[in-house]
């Protein structure tokens, strides 16, 4: 028998009768008029995605009424996005994890059994002690996503482990940040430091602002459109921003780097680049000139399908608006395995336009200098995360999820235990199910801290139910923005059911591990109050205002002719990268043509739906009602070939035989005949997610052809192909 069976959480011992998910909002009628009762407000930081907008929670007669944006907040400009507005659904979701659960074997069957917090915490602390004694604390790995991670990172570092990885790096923006770091010595940040509000030309390459609702990005892009900026969108699909663009370049998938190099070719050949900026700040122009010489628009046309005239015209438009031109760095950048190089090309293009740290291009974000709460130093770990995969991915500045997961498989695996916080690995890491099962079978401890019964919880020994963001304190938000600012998340409600705040769980574990000195607070708010008082505020003040803006202390942009020392080995912007060359990589990005599509297959193009943050929100009753399922977009020519009609349900098959859940067909011209498109985050298997279980298809599990970026370990996911497996008939979800 397997040490850990994947438990779909449908076999809870004490499951009993389950209430209907209906009538969450109490079936409230429009009478009496909203807002006529006793209305109270508390500040929050939205946790519906990673953007962390500050908002205000409204309660009417002690019932949750609504959540709106904080007008003082630069992240959101006073307006939350669809998901943020749908935040009440996270709190009200009847499928939430309600009580600690432990895997137990009863009559030969593995089941999750409701246990007390004491039992669950004692078990976890006991296992953590045993791992530290037997193998060393570094062998306990944290996999995480989200704002509440900090409590558990703190716990693990106090315990002696700095081992951690998050999908936000190797499955998302890692290549972009590494590419920019290698080039300009800084990352594109989060929120992205694009100065789109002042831009006169914006270039999106495979970025779907508007389909992703990165709030500040959506708002500043709209500002730019309203003030007449030129939008150029490169996307094989007629995305939402493509529909708002002056130039839509329906590029052949996988050839973006050729286009970027050709644009650089035009800028250099036609002498359109920012000569002063490039001479003052960069290293390697001559090498670059030589390198891009062969990427003529005429040659690149054959690769990309973008006409030479269009390549030249768009390059000239970018140059005309420069430096107020943003070639957007994008966010999810793990596409084809050469993603660091492509991101470098994006950075280099911005540099040629002189837009890095110039008005209308990129700004320099500034944070508040917020002192840390005085705590003892962490013990120094003897092993780092990267020791789990020695010699691999030399430019990864943080843990690589796919690397650490592989290093958790087998009796002699590097890692012996996992603490998983807020990340649903089965839907996050492509093609991971088998590896995940193998890892779960050899690890000595898998503990999952979650609010929802995600698929990941099915692999756990212990599930610790965290309360939602509306019921807890977390760290102050202090992310770099146009102006420094702090924002507070505080509980609007007592934790529902038997869920607990992350800080409390971490502290309880800390105490059981004898790490009291790292958790000196009775309540986490004491730590926040201390920090706030160091910068002239207080918890009391922040509880009233939610967001406090501070004046900038440094300029937002480079001033004319300012001498700058960049954080690169040469102290210059590196168009030519010696450090890449030293490690055996191309010093300048080289285009490789994409793999051809096998006969009868289509490129699997995946993306976002504005209503959802991946699979994290699909069970949120408010957002489920808005967008309950994903569709597979099919070009009419393909549809007629396969005799597919709008509303049909099909399954998708990968070349290696994986077949997806059924998904609804949308026949649309918005996708070309060589690809299909679907939103990520559907096809949940966990039956305890009663709304979304079994609805739609999951793209991650269809991925079979993962292109790992040798520079930083990112998993390129755009080289995957699918075909149709027809369903007998259309009808209700299975």
């Amino acid at each position, binding site marked *: 028998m397997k040490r850990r069976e994947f438990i779909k959480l449908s076999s809870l011992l004490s499951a009993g009768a389950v209430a209907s998910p209906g009538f969450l909002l109490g079936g409230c009628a429009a009478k009496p008029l909203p807002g006529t009762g006793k209305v109270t407000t508390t500040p929050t930081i939205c946790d519906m995605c990673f953007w962390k907008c500050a908002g205000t929670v409204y309660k009417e007669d002690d019932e949750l*009424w609504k959540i709106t944006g904080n007008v003082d907040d630069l992240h959101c400009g006073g307006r939350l996005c669809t998901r943020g507005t749908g935040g009440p659904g996270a709190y009200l979701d009847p499928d939430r994890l309600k009580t600690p659960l432990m895997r137990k074997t009863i009559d030969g069957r593995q089941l999750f059994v409701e246990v007390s917090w004491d039992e669950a915490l004692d078990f976890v602390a006991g296992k953590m002690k045993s791992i530290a004694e037997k193998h060393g604390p570094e062998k306990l790995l944290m996999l995480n996503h989200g704002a509440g991670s900090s409590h558990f990172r703190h716990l693990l570092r106090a315990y002696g482990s700095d081992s951690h990885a998050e999908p936000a790096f190797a499955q998302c923006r890692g290549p972009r940040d590494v590419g920019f770091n290698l080039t300009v010595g800084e990352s594109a940040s989060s929120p992205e430091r694009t100065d789109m509000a002042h831009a006169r030309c914006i270039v999106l390459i495979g970025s779907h602002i508007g389909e992703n609702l990165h709030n500040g990005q959506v708002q500043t892009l*709209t500002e730019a459109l309203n003030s007449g900026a030129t939008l150029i969108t490169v996307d094989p699909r007629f995305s939402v*921003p493509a529909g708002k663009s002056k130039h839509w370049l*329906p590029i052949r998938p996988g050839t973006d780097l050729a286009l970027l190099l050709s644009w650089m070719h035009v800028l250099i050949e036609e002498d359109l680049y920012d000569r002063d900026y490039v001479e003052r700040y960069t290293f390697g122009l001559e090498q670059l000139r030589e390198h891009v010489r062969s990427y003529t628009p005429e040659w690149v046309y054959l690769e990309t399908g973008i006409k030479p005239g269009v390549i030249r015209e768009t390059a000239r438009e970018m140059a005309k608006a420069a430096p107020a031109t943003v070639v957007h760095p994008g966010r999810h950048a793990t596409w084809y395995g050469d993603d660091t190089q492509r991101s470098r090309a994006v950075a280099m293009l911005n540099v040629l336009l002189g837009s890095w740290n110039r008005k209308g291009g990129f700004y320099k974000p500034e944070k508040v200098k917020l002192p840390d709460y005085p705590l003892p130093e962490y013990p120094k770990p003897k092993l780092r995360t990267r020791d789990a995969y020695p010699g691999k991915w030399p430019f990864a500045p943080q843990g690589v999820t796919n690397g650490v997961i592989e290093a958790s498989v087998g009796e002699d695996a590097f890692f012996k235990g996992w603490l998983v916080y807020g990340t649903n690995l089965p839907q996050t890491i492509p093609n991971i199910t088998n590896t995940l099962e193998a890892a779960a079978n050899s690890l000595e401890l898998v503990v999952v801290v979650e609010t929802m019964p995600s698929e990941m919880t099915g692999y756990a020994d212990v599930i610790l139910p965290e309360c939602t963001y509306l019921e807890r304190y977390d760290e102050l938000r202090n992310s770099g923005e146009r102006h420094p600012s702090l924002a507070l998340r505080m509980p609007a409600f007592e934790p529902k059911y038997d869920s607990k705040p992350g800080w409390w769980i971490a502290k309880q574990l800390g105490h059981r591990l004898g790490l009291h000195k790292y958790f000196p607070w009775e309540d986490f708010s004491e730590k926040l109050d201390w920090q706030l008082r160091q910068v002239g505020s207080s918890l009391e003040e922040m509880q009233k205002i939610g967001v406090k803006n501070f004046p900038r202390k440094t300029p937002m942009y480079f001033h004319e002719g300012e001498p700058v020392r960049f954080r690169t080995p040469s102290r210059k912007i590196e168009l030519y990268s010696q450090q890449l060359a030293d490690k055996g990589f191309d010093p300048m990005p080289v285009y490789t043509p994409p793999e051809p599509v096998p006969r009868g297959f289509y490129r699997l193009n995946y993306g976002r739906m504005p209503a959802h943050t991946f699979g994290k929100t699909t069970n949120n009753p408010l957002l489920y009602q808005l967008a309950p399922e994903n569709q597979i977009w099919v070009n009419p020519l393909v549809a007629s070939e396969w005799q597919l009609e709008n509303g049909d349900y099909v399954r998708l098959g990968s070349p290696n035989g994986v077949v997806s859940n059924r998904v609804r067909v949308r026949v649309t*011209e918005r996708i070309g005949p060589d690809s299909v498109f679907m939103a990520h985050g559907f096809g949940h298997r966990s039956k305890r997610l009663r709304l979304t279980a079994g609805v739609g298809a999951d793209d991650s599990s269809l991925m079979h052809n993962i292109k790992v970026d040798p520079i930083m370990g990112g998993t390129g996911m755009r080289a995957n192909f699918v075909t149709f497996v027809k369903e007998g008939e259309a009808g209700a979800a299975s």
Partner: protein
Amino acid sequence: MTRYAMVIDTKTCIGCGDCVVACKTENKVPDGLNRDWIVELTRGTYPRLETEFRSERCNHCSNPTCVTLCPTGASHLWNQTNIVLVDADKCTGCKACIAACPYDARLVMHPDGYVDKCTFCHHRVEQGLDPACVSSCPTRCMHFGSLDDPGSSVSELLQTRKYKVLNPETGNEPNVYYLT
């Protein structure tokens, strides 16, 4: 009589549905029901295409056939404006107003059975606030105000931009305008 209008810029609307969720929470609209919704229109053949997103709701028509056909006076105009409301205590649930609306913008509240609809958030308008949908929109593509005030943003937009309304042939004179 004050004539309130909503002006929605299809050039910047991204169809994100924030307006739909904001309405649901603000007005406590029961599960499964909606007072507003998003329509996406795509024309052309790949790769020569155009799209339009429209946030739709009750048009608060100047000639509201739902009001004229209501047998009990439950459907009425609010406070000498064009804002069409339903008085639940006068509504018999005969559904004449639902049949009378060319935009299918009315709904029956479950489990009670009276007819409900978008109110232009008159409870907010009364306080000088925009409707919840307008004030939540992250692209700020939605505008609300009085057409009687030539300085209002809605009046100015209609003077300077091209616009359309839905199915003008109905003669209902709708007051939700779409900038094109």
